[in-house]
C-alpha cells in the first residue's frame, strides 16, 4: 500500500487530487469562463443573447482612445505610487528605523502599519476627506497661509498616487526591515574599516546584498498596484473626465455602467497581460547573479 502511494508509484497522484479538483473548480473554471466572455458580446442589459465575436473586443480596445488613456494612467499610477513611492519610502523608513531608538521605532511602526491594515474603503474615504476642496489638507494649508489646492480635480492621478503611497508603504517597510536585519554585522564592519561612508556603504554593500528582496517586493507591489480599484473609485471615480481612469476603473465603467461585459472582460485580460510583462522583468532580476 505505502509503496503504491509513494512518489512515482502508480497511485502517487492520489493525495493531490482534492487540491487539484478544488483549483480546477474555483480557479481554472472562472478563468476559463472569463477568457470565453472576452470573446463574446455579452451585455449586462439591453440584450438577452450572447454571441461569439472573435477578436472584436480586442480590436476595439486598441482603437479606443479611452483605453489607451487608461493604459497610460495605469503605468503612471504604478510607477509613481508603487515603484517610486512605496518602494523608496519603505526602504528609507526601514533604513532610518534601524538607527532610531526603540520608542521612536515602535511609534513610527504603529502609524505606518495602521495605514496599511485599514480596509481599503476606509482609507479611501479618509484620504478623500483629506484631499477634497473643503478637506483637512486645505484647512492646514490655509492656517499656514499657504496656497490651497484642489488636487482631486486638477491632478487627480497624483492625489490617488499619494493616497496609495500612504496606504501601501508599510508593506515595503516590513520587507526591507527584515532584509536589512539579514545582513551580517561583520560585512558592515569590514566596509567601515575600509573607510566606506554611510551612503557609499549603502549603495555598494547593502543594496546588492538585499537585491532579491527588492525584486520580490517590487513584484508584489506592482501587481497589487496594477489592480487597485476601490481606492480610486471612492476618491475620484476615475474622474474628472477620465483623468484618473486607470484600467480597473475603466473596466468597471465599461462592464457595469455601460453594460458591455464582454468588452470589460477583454480589457481585464489585457490588464493581466500587462501584469505578466512586469512579472517577467522582475523574475529576470531575481534570477541574474551579481
Amino acid at each position, binding site marked *: 500500500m505505502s509503496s503504491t502511494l509513494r512518489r512515482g508509484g502508480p497511485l502517487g497522484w492520489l493525495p493531490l487530487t482534492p487540491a487539484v479538483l478544488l483549483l480546477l473548480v474555483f480557479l481554472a473554471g472562472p478563468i476559463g469562463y472569463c477568457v470565453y466572455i472576452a470573446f463574446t458580446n455579452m451585455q*449586462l442589459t439591453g440584450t438577452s443573447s450572447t454571441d461569439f465575436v472573435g477578436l472584436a473586443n480586442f480590436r476595439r480596445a486598441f482603437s479606443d482612445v479611452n483605453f489607451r488613456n487608461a493604459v497610460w494612467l495605469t503605468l503612471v499610477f504604478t510607477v509613481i505610487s508603487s515603484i517610486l513611492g512605496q518602494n523608496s519610502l519603505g526602504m528609507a523608513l526601514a533604513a532610518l528605523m534601524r538607527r532610531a531608538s526603540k520608542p521612536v521605532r515602535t511609534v513610527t511602526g504603529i502609524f505606518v502599519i495602521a495605514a496599511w491594515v485599514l480596509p481599503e474603503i476606509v482609507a479611501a474615504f479618509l484620504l478623500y476627506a483629506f484631499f477634497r476642496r473643503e478637506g483637512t489638507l486645505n484647512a492646514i494649508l490655509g492656517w499656514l497661509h499657504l496656497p490651497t489646492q484642489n488636487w482631486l480635480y486638477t491632478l487627480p492621478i497624483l492625489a490617488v498616487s499619494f493616497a496609495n503611497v500612504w496606504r501601501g508603504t508599510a508593506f515595503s517597510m516590513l520587507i526591507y526591515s527584515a532584509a536589512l536585519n539579514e545582513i551580517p554585522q561583520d560585512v558592515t564592519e569590514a566596509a567601515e574599516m575600509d573607510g566606506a561612508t554611510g551612503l557609499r556603504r549603502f549603495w555598494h554593500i547593502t543594496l546588492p546584498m538585499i537585491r532579491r528582496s527588492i525584486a520580490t517586493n517590487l513584484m508584489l507591489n506592482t501587481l497589487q498596484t496594477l489592480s487597485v480599484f476601490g481606492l480610486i473609485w471612492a476618491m475620484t*471615480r476615475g*474622474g*474628472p473626465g477620465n483623468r484618473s481612469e486607470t484600467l480597473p476603473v475603466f473596466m468597471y465603467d465599461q462592464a457595469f455602467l455601460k453594460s458591455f461585459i464582454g468588452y470589460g472582460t477583454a480589457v481585464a485580460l489585457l490588464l493581466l497581460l500587462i501584469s505578466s510583462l512586469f512579472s517577467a522583468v522582475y523574475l529576470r532580476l531575481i534570477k541574474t547573479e551579481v
Partner: protein
Amino acid sequence: MRPTAPLILAAAATVIAAGSLTACGSGSGSDPDTVRIAYQRSTSNKVRIMDNYLATVKKDFEKANPGKKVKLLPIQADENAYYTKIQQMMRSPKTAPDLVYEDTFLINSDIKSGYLAPIDKYLDAWPGWDHFVPTAKTAAKAQDGKTYGVPDGTDTRGLWFNKEIFKKAGLPENWQPKSWAEILDAARTIKKKVPGSIPLNVYTGKGPGEAAVMQGFEMLLYGTGADPLYDAKQRKWVAGGKGFKDSLDFVHTVFKERLGPEQSDALDPNVGTQVQTEWLPDSKLAIDLDGSWLGNQWLPTGGKPWPAWSKVMGQAAMPTQNGQAPGTVSMSGGWTWSIPSKSRNTDLAWKMIQQLQTQKNAVKWTVQGAQIAVRDDVAKDPEYLKSSPGVTFFTSLVKNTHYRPALPVYPQVSSAIGDAMESVTTGDASPEAAAKTYDDQLKTAVGDAIVSKG
C-alpha cells in the same frame, strides 16, 4: 462564483459603506411565503422616505395576508450603482428579488435582457388599472406590446429659483425666462450682484448619472427642435445634430464663465443630495434646473424639513432655446414596480403591487414621494392637490413634456451623453469635439441605426 465576483465585491464594498446590504443572496429567494422587495435607498442617511412608506405597506400586507412575510432589500447606492446591483441580482434565481423598483430609463433595456416578467394577465383582472392615465399605462410597455410594470408616479422638470437671492440681485419675483439667453443673463447678474452664491446649477457629468443627462442635458436638447435625440419615424438615432452641440455649448458656457458650482462639486455623484439638503435650504444656490420632486425633502416627513421653502422658492418653466413654439419644455420619467422573470413568487409579488396601489396608498406615496399623479383618482384627491405649493405648477408642465426614447439601447446612449457633458464641464474638450466623440460612441452602441443631421 463568476469571474467578475471580485469586481462586484469591490463595487459593493464601495457603495455599501455601512454594511447595510442585507440578505443579498442569502438564498431566501425560494421561500414561497416571503416577498422580497429591492429598492433604492438614498445615500443621505437622513432621507428615508421610501423606506418609511414601504414599512407601513409591509405592515398592512402582513396583516391582510396571515403567514406571508415581506422582506425589504434596501440598496443604499447612487443611481448607477443601484442599476448595476439590481441587474446583477436579477441574473440568477438565487438572488432575484420578487419585486423590483425599476426606473423607466432602464426598463426597456432590462425587458430586452429578459430580466422582467410581463404582467398583462394580472392587469386584465385588476380594476385599479382603469384609473391610470394612458401615458402612464405605456410607461412600462415594451416593443412586444406587453406591459412589464405598474408606474407609481411620474415627474416633470423645470427651474427652481431662490426669491431672496433674486431680490438682492434686483430680479423679479415672478421670473419666467423666455430663452436660454435670458437664463444665462439672470445668472450673470446674480454672479455680479450677489457674490459668494452659486448662480445656476445644471447637473452634469458621469457622477450624477442619468440625473445629469435628463435634468441637465435633455431639458436643453429637447428645447432645440423636433426629435433631437432619436428620430422615431426613421427609427434612427441622431448624430451630429446642431441642437446637440448647442446644448453642450450651454453647459460649457455655464462652467467656463463660472456661473455654476465648482466643477469638482458639480461632478460629484452626490451633488443631487447636496443641492436638496444644503445649497437650496441654505440660500447658496440661486437657480436650479431640477425635478418636480425637489420639495419632498423639505416636507415635515423629509430629510431636511424646511417650512419656509414655499415662500422662498419660486418655480419657472424651462424655456425652449430661442423661445420657439411651444415656448416651454419639460422631460418626464418615473419609476415602476416590476416583477423579475426569475422570481418564484410572482403571484405574491402581484398581491404586493396591489397593496402598494390601493387608492389610499397611492395617494400617500404620491404625496410623500413628491410625485406627479398618474392615476385619475389620485389627481383629484384633495390631499394630493394641497400636498405642496409646487404640485399644480409641475402638473401643468405635463402638456409640453417629452419622454426619453423608450429603447433598450438608451442607457448606453445616456452614458455617452454623460461622458460628453463631463468633458465640456472640465474643459477637456470643446463642444464640437465632445459631440464628435459622442457620435463615435453612438456608433458603437447602436450600430447602423444612425441618421446624420449635421
